[in-house]
Structures are given as structure tokens and as C-alpha cells.
């Protein structure tokens, strides 16, 4: 008889979150959800009094930040380096230019003319001072921590779920333990294949959700300052941490099927990819 799986589902971080565990009660899952909501309030760009919004409005001044924010900013700098600039948290001006200026559920409209925004390298506009635990953003620069926060939080919060659980934050998930069948947790990937994992992370990036207008979507290519043009619709990556998986999946999407999948292969990672369906020269997303 399989052990009982305790589960909890809720909407946060602009998506659906799912917590699964064996051997912990609902109270542990409720604590985990509370931490997700606390993080959402801190890292959202949509609430004017969030810590991220205050940092974005800092106009070049050093501001003291919470330990949680400091760690997330360090993670953002790591992501920039690891991706050689393809994952750039300073992408917010380009997202706004593309029309992503409010929570997606409120409905977005594509600007008649979406200007390409030249994005600065993150290390040039984000300065951290560990001695005073403060951060400064160059005037005009602004951060979106959405994907990075989901990955980093999944890595952090898996500890809340004991030694046998899944922390799935909007598709960025971290896994630990043998699962209900004893061979690891069974996780579905973007191409409808599935893997069993006892420790690790699975993350998916793509352009099939959060689309609006004729061609706008949320995946901005920092090299162009525009929504990415890629021949991939979705990529799932299996790796050791959800933050790394988030970064690598996004890299693969932005690099496209040839260079992107080679990027993952050279790192020896298991992955799944779904090609985009094209109409003319415009990628429309995955075949259903």
C-alpha cells in the first residue's frame, strides 16, 4: 500500500503552486505556503510597497535590504554570470516596453510600437554591499525577479517538506525522496514524457503561456530587448537545483534548437524540448 501523499495547491507568484509531501502533515505545507506568500509580497514588481518596487525606485541610492532580498540579488548576479548574460534580471524596462506592465491575469495589450530596449549588463547596474547589506540600482535600471525567485524559492522551501516531498512553484520544481511508489517522484516534462527523481529539480521555460497581442510574450531576449524569437516553444531541464534549472531552461529557449540544446547536451543534462510551430517567420508556440 502506497504511503499517503499530503498535498496543497494555491495561486501565488503569478502562477499555480503545488506542495506534496509524505510524512509531514498539512501544517508543514501551510507553513511552506505562508513562506511563498511572504516571498511574493517581497519580490513582486506589481505592488508599490514591495521591497523590490522600493529598490527599483531607488534612483541610484544604496538602500538597506532584507537578508532574503540580498540573497535573491546575489542569485540574480549568479544567474547572469552562469548564463553569460542571457538571464538578466535587469530586463524589466524591456518587459514594460512589450506591454507587460501589470499582472498577467489583468489582461495585457501589445503596444502599437514596441521599441527595443537596450538592456545593461546586470553587474554594471546592480551593486551590492555585504558589509552594510545594502543594494543600489543605477538610475533607469529596474529588476524583475520572477523566474529567479521561483527557482531559488523552490530550492529553499524543499527543506520545509521533510525528506520526501515536491515543491512546485509555477512549474519550477524541486524534488526530494522516494515518493509514493518508492522509486522517486514521477514528474512530467514539457514533451509529455516523465521521469522519476529522488533528488533534484525540473524546470520548464517557454513561450506558450503569458502571450498577448499578436506576438508578444514574457520571455525577453536581453540581446535584443524584445520578446525572444526562437524556434523552441518549451524546454524542460532536469538538474540539481531549481535555480540552475530555471536559468538553463531559459538559456536553451533563447539560444534556439541548435545552440540551445547543444548547451544542455554539453552539460550532460536530461532535457525535453518542444519545437515551435511557425507561420511565416513567426513562432506561434507549441503544437498541442
Amino acid at each position, binding site marked *: 500500500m502506497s504511503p499517503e501523499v499530503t498535498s496543497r495547491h494555491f495561486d501565488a507568484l503569478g502562477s499555480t503552486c503545488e506542495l506534496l509531501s509524505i510524512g509531514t502533515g498539512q501544517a508543514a505545507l501551510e507553513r511552506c505556503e505562508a513562506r511563498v506568500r511572504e516571498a511574493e509580497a517581497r519580490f513582486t514588481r506589481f505592488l508599490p510597497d514591495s521591497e523590490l518596487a522600493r529598490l527599483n525606485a531607488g534612483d541610484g*541610492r544604496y538602500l538597506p535590504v532584507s537578508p532574503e532580498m540580498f540573497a535573491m540579488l546575489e*542569485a540574480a548576479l549568479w544567474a547572469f554570470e552562469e548564463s553569460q548574460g542571457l538571464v538578466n534580471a535587469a530586463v524589466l524596462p524591456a518587459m514594460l516596453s512589450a506591454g507587460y506592465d501589470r499582472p498577467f491575469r489583468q489582461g495585457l495589450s501589445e503596444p502599437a510600437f514596441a521599441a527595443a530596449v537596450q538592456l545593461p549588463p546586470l553587474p554594471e547596474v546592480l551593486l551590492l554591499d*555585504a558589509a552594510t547589506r545594502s543594494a543600489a540600482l543605477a538610475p533607469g535600471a529596474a529588476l524583475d525577479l520572477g523566474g529567479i525567485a521561483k527557482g531559488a524559492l523552490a530550492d529553499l522551501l524543499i527543506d520545509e517538506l521533510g525528506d520526501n516531498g515536491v515543491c512546485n512553484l509555477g512549474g519550477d520544481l524541486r524534488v526530494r525522496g522516494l515518493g509514493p511508489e518508492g522509486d522517486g517522484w514521477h514528474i512530467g516534462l514539457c514533451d509529455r514524457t516523465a521521469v522519476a527523481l529522488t533528488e533534484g529539480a525540473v524546470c520548464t521555460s517557454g513561450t506558450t503561456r503569458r502571450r498577448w497581442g499578436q506576438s508578444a510574450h514574457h520571455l525577453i531576449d536581453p540581446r535584443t530587448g524584445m520578446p525572444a524569437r526562437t524556434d523552441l516553444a518549451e524546454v524542460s531541464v532536469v538538474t540539481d537545483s531549481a535555480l540552475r534549472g530555471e536559468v538553463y531552461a531559459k538559456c536553451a529557449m533563447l539560444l534556439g534548437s541548435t545552440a540551445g540544446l547543444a548547451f544542455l547536451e554539453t552539460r550532460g543534462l536530461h532535457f525535453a524540448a518542444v519545437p515551435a510551430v511557425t507561420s511565416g517567420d513567426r513562432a506561434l508556440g507549441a503544437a498541442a
Partner: protein
Amino acid sequence: MSSIATLRWASMLGTLVLALGSGAVVATSPKPTQAPWHPAVTLLPSDATVQSKSYVS
């Protein structure tokens, strides 16, 4: 960028350089700190029960 803002930013960079020179610790990228390890992945048959799913959100 306004000239005042440029000056303010340049001043901050100067402060940072001085801090580095005096041995103060300036944070660098921290996470994840280790080289990636590769999870043991077992491919499941197409009819396997899936407990969770990674997806584009």
C-alpha cells in the same frame, strides 16, 4: 539619465572602489556555489502515473 543622477551614480562607484581598496567585503554571486551534480534520472513509460509536472507558467 540626468546629470545629477549620473554624478550620484559615479560617486557611488567611487565609494565602492574605496571600499574595495580598504578591504571591505563586497558581495559576489553566490548561488548555487557548487558545480552542478547530475540527478539520477529514471525514464518512465508513457502510461506511468505522474505526481507533479513541470510546465511553463
